[in-house]
Structure formats: structure tokens, C-alpha cells
């Protein structure tokens, strides 16, 4: 009885404090509507506390509630505006008898009218606004969201999208190749452009500014843009291919970012870049600018690991992927599986599907808790960057598929025979592997042999394999699936 929602009326609105469950934020028999936004949180209650009450508190604080009863609710259609926690499941392998304290998956439904159309800022102010600091939860993590079609249709989505990006670049049927200019800090504009030219002429499609290269004392932004675009155009003439360099326009103000973006456009750049740290509203503004100016918009996920990496608190990166596809970026770094940065293969598959699918089915093993219809929103190209090299090409192509930018920074610039040779090694490895895959060969197992065969006529690939053959990054991932496939007996 004490758990039941109090009926609307005088008793419900008597001044004082009520449990959130009693205030209407826990409705286990709620029927989810197609137009509802759904969110799934991983909650860690304080020892001995009722997980349903904690779920109701999260629903309450992320929608209409405050800590005490207020009579002004009665001036509104308050039952509609209240978010409803409708399901709480124990998280597998937590709680008694395990090394992890008890956690629960709490599902919450939000009425569409709670949110302003076309505003990631408004959406997130509710969903991750206050609740993560509530004393009532020991730890809280936003695991996934289902965005209704009605709400998606209020967003522009990726400025260019994977399909149009490929058409503009005239590159089809293979992953794109890129590299981040290194060292990321300290090069003068002239020296920096040298690295860009060598990488592109050698065979890469893109070069890239790093996240923290903006306009420092050693190289002001206009110098970088001018030298890089000379390198891009010279490499394009040298190869007959469309080439690009992600010019990072991240700056302290919107006015300054627009100014830098306009300059990039005036120089004929096909792509600009921003960092996640500029904030959701700035990202949306730049996406609108990019759509209006025929520009591909690359997003570096600088800062995300501060809140996405730990399993019990923060938010899962798949939610960032959803929000960024809505916000309108064309590229986002989404993991490599085999490189130096965090990434469990099943989880990364979930991120890639979220960015590229027209319709994503529920898939618990990939961490996708909800079915998601993408309502014809453009696709966002995942970028794999960090500690990858030519010798892993068969693994990269198997795990990540064709729609990805493979970024070999160290794996290009660190090549013993120079940057052009490094780029050539990567391009040959990629084309040899795509050719073999299309021919129906088992590249997962035959991959090393395919690379060695190509290395017989391509000495830069030979040198790359010899240099990096033993380099792997085998660390246990922290963000892993809670659900593993159950082995079935075959008869």
C-alpha cells in the first residue's frame, strides 16, 4: 500500500514530503507511447534502499518534481508532465555474491511535450541536468535513450551525411584513410603543412588537426589554414584525387569559430572540425553553418571519457553518438577496437550501428537497450583513431566495415621511410584487403598472409609490418556488455 501512487486530490497535495513513488513517478503498468522519449539509467542505490524509489526519484528530478509537495502542480496537467519510471531490473553480475554492489536498470518514459524541438541543450538539461548529483543515488549512469521519430524530425541531422560525403569526395566502396598531424603541438605553420602534404600525396584521403591545436603562440590559426590548404591542393594535383584536411575551428567564442570557418571555406577546404568541448549548442550552430556552406563537419570527442568511461557513473558513449547524430555532425570518433583507446568490440559495434543505421534493432549484447528508428536522418561517419597501423588492416575491416575513416597518425608519420611511404603502406594494405574481402576470401584468418603478399611488391608496406608487427594494446575494457550471448547446443 505504502508504495502506491496517491490519487489526485487533497491528500496527494497536503504540504510536506512524500516518497517519489507516491507522487506518481513510479508506474509499473505504464503503457509506453510511440511519441515518448525513453531513457534507461543504471542506478546504484545506497545499501538497503528501495531501487524503485530511487528510479522514481530520478524520473521526478529529471521532469517536474522537487523535494517537497507543491500545490502549484494542480494548475497543470501534471500527470502528463511527470516522467514515469516503469521498469526496474537488477543488473546481471551485481549485488550479493559478486564483487560489485547492487545495480539496477531503471527505464523511464518522458512525454514529448517536456522538450523543446531541435534543442540538444534542452533535452540534456532535463535528462542529465540535476539528477546526477542527487544524494538519493550513490551513482547513476545514463545507458541509452530511445528518441521518438516525432522528436528526431525537429533536428537537422548530419550536415552532409555519409552518402553525400562520399559523392563529394568521389570515394566509394572502401574505408577512408586519414592521419592526425604529429607532433600535435609546436610545429610552425610551414612545418605543419609539410606533414599534411606528404601524407596526402602518399595516399591518404584526409589529414587532421588534433583536438587542442587552435591558435597558439607557435602557430596562429590563419598560418595553419593557409599552409594546410596549399598542401591539400598540391597533393590533389599530384594524385588526381579530392583531398582534405580537417581544419579545427574550435575557439573561445561562436563569433571566432564562424570567422575561422568562413576563412576555411574561402580557401576551398571541403571539411572543418570542432571539438565536443565547445558544447551542444555550439555544435548545433556549426552544423547549421556547415549545411549552408557545403562543408563536412568533423567532431573530435575531446572530453567524453571524463564521463563515459566508468561503468557505474556518467553516461554511455552510445548516448553521445545519438545526440551528436541529432546535433548534425558528419564525423565522430567512435573507437577502433584494436587501438590504444578504450573499446570493447561489442560495445563499439553498438556505437557504429547507432551512427550508421536507418533503423537499429534492440541488441543487448551490443549495449543497445532500445529499438531506434532514425527517421531518414543522415548517417554520421565513425572515425577510428588512436594506435592503429597497417598490420591490423584485416581486423579493422572486419570489425568496422567500409563506412569509417581509419586514422593512422603514428602509423603514417612514424614510418621508417618517411611520411609518404607510411601513407602508401596504409593505402596498399587497405586496397589489398578490400579486394580480397570482395573476392570472398576469409580476411580474418588470411589477413596476415594477404598483407605479406602485398608487401612483396610494396616495400613501404614491408617496412611498416616489420616495424609494428608486435604492437598490440591488450588491456581489459572498462565499458563492457552486461549481457553475453548464451551458448546454445547444436544438434
Amino acid at each position, binding site marked *: 500500500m505504502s508504495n502506491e501512487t496517491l490519487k489526485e486530490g487533497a491528500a496527494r497535495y497536503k504540504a510536506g514530503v512524500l516518497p517519489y513513488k507516491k507522487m506518481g513517478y513510479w508506474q509499473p503498468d505504464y503503457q509506453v507511447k510511440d511519441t515518448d522519449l525513453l531513457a534507461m539509467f543504471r542506478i546504484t542505490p545506497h545499501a538497503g534502499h528501495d531501487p524503485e524509489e530511487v528510479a522514481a526519484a530520478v524520473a521526478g528530478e529529471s521532469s517536474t518534481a522537487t523535494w517537497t509537495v507543491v500545490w502549484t502542480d494542480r494548475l497543470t496537467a501534471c500527470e502528463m508532465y511527470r516522467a514515469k519510471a516503469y521498469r526496474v531490473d537488477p543488473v546481471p553480475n551485481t549485488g550479493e555474491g559478486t564483487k560489485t554492489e547492487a545495480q539496477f536498470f531503471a527505464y523511464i518514459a518522458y512525454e514529448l511535450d517536456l522538450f523543446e524541438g531541435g534543442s540538444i541543450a534542452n533535452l540534456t538539461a532535463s535528462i542529465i541536468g540535476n539528477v546526477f548529483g542527487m544524494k538519493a543515488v550513490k551513482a547513476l549512469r545514463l545507458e541509452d535513450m530511445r528518441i521518438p521519430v516525432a522528436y528526431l524530425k525537429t533536428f537537422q541531422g548530419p550536415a552532409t551525411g555519409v*552518402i553525400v560525403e562520399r559523392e563529394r569526395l568521389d570515394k*566509394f566502396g572502401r574505408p577512408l584513410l586519414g592521419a592526425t598531424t604529429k607532433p600535435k603541438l609546436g610545429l610552425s605553420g610551414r612545418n605543419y603543412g609539410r606533414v599534411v602534404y606528404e601524407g596526402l600525396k602518399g595516399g591518404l584521403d584526409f589529414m587532421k588537426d588534433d583536438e587542442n591545436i587552435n591558435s597558439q603562440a607557435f602557430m596562429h590559426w590563419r598560418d595553419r589554414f593557409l599552409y594546410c590548404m596549399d598542401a591539400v591542393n598540391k597533393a590533389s594535383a599530384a594524385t588526381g*584525387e579530392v583531398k582534405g584536411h580537417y581544419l579545427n575551428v574550435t575557439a573561445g567564442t561562436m563569433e571566432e569559430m564562424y570567422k575561422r570557418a568562413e576563412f576555411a571555406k574561402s580557401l576551398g577546404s571541403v571539411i572543418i572540425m570542432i571539438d565536443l568541448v565547445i558544447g551542444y549548442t555550439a555544435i548545433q550552430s556549426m552544423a547549421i553553418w556547415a549545411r549552408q556552406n557545403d562543408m563536412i563537419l568533423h567532431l573530435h570527442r575531446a572530453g567524453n571519457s571524463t564521463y563515459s568511461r566508468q561503468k557505474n557513473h556518467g553516461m554511455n558513449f552510445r548516448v553521445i553518438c545519438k545526440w551528436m547524430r541529432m546535433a548534425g555532425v558528419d564525423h565522430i570518433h567512435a573507437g577502433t577496437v584494436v587501438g590504444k583507446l578504450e573499446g570493447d568490440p561489442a560495445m563499439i559495434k553498438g556505437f557504429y550501428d547507432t551512427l550508421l543505421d536507418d533503423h537499429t534493432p534492440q541488441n543487448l549484447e551490443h549495449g543497445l537497450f532500445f529499438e531506434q528508428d532514425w527517421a531518414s536522418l543522415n548517417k554520421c561517419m565513425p572515425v577510428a583513431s588512436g594506435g592503429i597501423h597497417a598490420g591490423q588492416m584485416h581486423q579493422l575491416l572486419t570489425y568496422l566495415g567500409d563506412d569509417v575513416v581509419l586514422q593512422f597518425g603514428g602509423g603514417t608519420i612514424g614510418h621508417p621511410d618517411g611520411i609518404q611511404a607510411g601513407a602508401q603502406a596504409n593505402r596498399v594494405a587497405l586496397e589489398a584487403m578490400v579486394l580480397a574481402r570482395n573476392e570472398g576470401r576469409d580476411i580474418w584468418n588470411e589477413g596476415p598472409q594477404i598483407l605479406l603478399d602485398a608487401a612483396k611488391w610494396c616495400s613501404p608496406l614491408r617496412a611498416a609490418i616489420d616495424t609494428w608487427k608486435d604492437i598490440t594494446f591488450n588491456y581489459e575494457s572498462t565499458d563492457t556488455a552486461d549481457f553475453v550471448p548464451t551458448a546454445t547446443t547444436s544438434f
Partner: protein
Amino acid sequence: MMTNPNGIVTQGQFSFLPPLTDEQITKQLKYALSKGWATSVEYTDDPHPRNTYWEMFGPPMFDLKDPAGILMEINNCRKTFPNHYIRVMAFSSVRGVESPTMSYIVNRPKNEPGFGLVRQEADGRNIRYTIHSYATDKPEGERY
């Protein structure tokens, strides 16, 4: 003479590999057919990186499901335009793609002079770039 690693125009999926044999092309045609994609053959003597519309050697072969028949069209094109760039493309009509899905060069001129970069000095230190194909100084059909 082009001075990039291969000394040739590197558009398409497989320009960094040795020229594809007919047997290798057949396997790629089979791959496209297995995906339900229509193949087309296109040729040009203007390989500018932003020259999107190469001439069609007939429309995409939506109804031809035999890789040997498609290869015959490729070889007909090679016979007709032995010194042109010829590319094979595949098209997907699936909603969400509706765009080319493959593109690879199967024939090229014996000599590829490449491109010059024309720099027009503009205001301040700005430069306006034009990528100029040496071959297109001559009329169509007389370039290679």
C-alpha cells in the same frame, strides 16, 4: 610525369594495386551482383578530380546478371577507347544509400601527364587554387 608513389591518377578503390586482371575484375563483378548492385562502365579523357560525369558506355546494366557479359562490355569499351580512363561503378538502389557503392579504374592512358596547380594570388596572403589537367589543353578525343 606524375611524382606520387605510383606515378598515376589514384582515383577509385584499387589504384594502389597492380592493374586488375580480367579474373580479378570478374570477382569484383560477382561481389557487386551478390549485393544486388547494378554495374556501369564509364570513360573519360578529363580525369580532373571534380569531373563527376564521365561518359557512360551505355546505362548501368540493371538486368545483366552474368559477370562474363559485364566483362565483355568492359572489354568493348577498352577496345573502343584504348587510351582513355575507364572505370567500373556499382550502384545501390536501397533506401538510405541510393548512390554509387563501388568505383575502380580498369583502363588508363599509356602516359599520364597529371595536373598542374595554378595559384592566383588574391587579397593578403590568400591564394585561389585551380587544378589544371595538362591533357585538357587539347580538344576532347585528342588528349592522350
